């Protein structure tokens, strides 16, 4: 007797269709989270593009930063120093120091994904706050891998597309001050800082470093006060005994917890 064919057997599982594959991929929570994080983060590339042009960079220079540097905080730091009248070397220093946390993310991703050459090069390039946070939030190794790549590559594509859009729009705006673009830069840096102020110690570090900067501005060449504040922060981190991972939060949190604020002990403990 021929066994009855179950109804779902008519679907050829051995050769899935394209839409079938996409549908299955979409069923993965890591893919969905990675994709939504990519959209949210990629979109604000528009503010980077506009501010970069307002700081005096050309459109190709702006795009070089988005394509090659590809780590939002450092990109904003670079143009933030330039727009304040700082030198290229001071901008380089600020961007480099702000990018150091990516080395920590690199070790986490390498341990989770165990990528091989030459894929390791691509993995390294898209190792940023958001792709790392997406991967770290997953338990299953396959999900970690999917989350990392969808967030990383997705942000890369959208961040660059929206940087270009912002650079072109910013160039068309004309006088930056008239449109409040200097106020936009202030807001952008505060927006990057905000998610990292979880706990009393991060707030204290932020307040002290902001004060150091204001006090140093009249006495040092533009851009250099940022490096002094960086030194203060590094020494603080070296001697402190607080939570090890404070400051290492993504700008857009893939797994937002309810209580954002200074006393949210549950957040980011695995990071």
């Amino acid at each position, binding site marked *: 007797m021929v066994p009855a064919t179950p109804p779902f057997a008519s679907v050829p599982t051995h050769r899935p269709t394209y839409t079938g594959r996409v549908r299955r991929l979409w069923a993965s929570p890591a893919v969905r989270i990675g994709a939504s994080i990519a959209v949210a983060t990629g979109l604000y590339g528009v503010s980077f593009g506009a501010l970069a042009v307002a700081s005096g960079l050309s459109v190709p220079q702006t795009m070089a930063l988005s394509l090659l540097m590809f780590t939002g905080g450092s990109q904003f730091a670079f143009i933030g120093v330039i727009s*304040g009248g700082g030198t290229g070397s001071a901008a380089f220093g600020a961007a480099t120091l702000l990018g150091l946390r*990516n080395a920590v993310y690199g070790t986490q991703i390498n341990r989770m994904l165990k990528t091989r050459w030459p894929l390791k090069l691509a993995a390294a390039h898209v190792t940023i706050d958001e792709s790392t946070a997406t991967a770290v939030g997953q338990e299953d190794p396959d999900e970690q891998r999917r989350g990392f790549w969808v967030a990383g590559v997705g942000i890369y594509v959208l961040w660059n597309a929206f940087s270009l859009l912002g650079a072109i729009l910013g160039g068309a705006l004309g006088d930056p001050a008239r449109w409040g673009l200097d106020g936009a830069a202030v807001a952008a840096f505060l927006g990057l800082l905000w998610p990292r102020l979880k706990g009393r110690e991060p707030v204290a*570090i932020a307040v002290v470093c*902001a004060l150091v900067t204001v006090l140093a501005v009249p006495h040092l060449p533009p851009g250099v006060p940022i490096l002094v*504040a960086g030194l203060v922060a590094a020494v603080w981190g070296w001697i402190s005994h607080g939570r090890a991972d404070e400051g290492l939060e993504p700008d857009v949190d893939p797994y937002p917890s309810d209580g954002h604020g200074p006393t949210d002990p549950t957040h980011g403990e695995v990071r």
Partner: protein
Amino acid sequence: MSTGIWFWILLACAVAFLTKLVGHLVPARLLEDERMTRVAGALTIGLLASLVAMNTVSSGQQVVLDARLGALVAAAIALVLRAPFLVVVLVGAGAAALLRLTGIG
């Protein structure tokens, strides 16, 4: 500044990539040392706070209080109200532009 700045842009891009790659290459125990992680985290917070301060009050080597201070306050309010990043940036721009338009900044 256009030619000199290209040098620093490309150097900063190269170093940024190498920083990420180093994390993927060195044994985890070297960088996952708690102290290094703390330094990296504190550095991130301190530099961003410094960039907030510098972009709010500095004008070359002078400390100037102007419309940008209003932008800072407006952005903070937007963040307390949990506005998304892009909205926060627009609120900051709007506040600075509005204050200037009214002649306060």
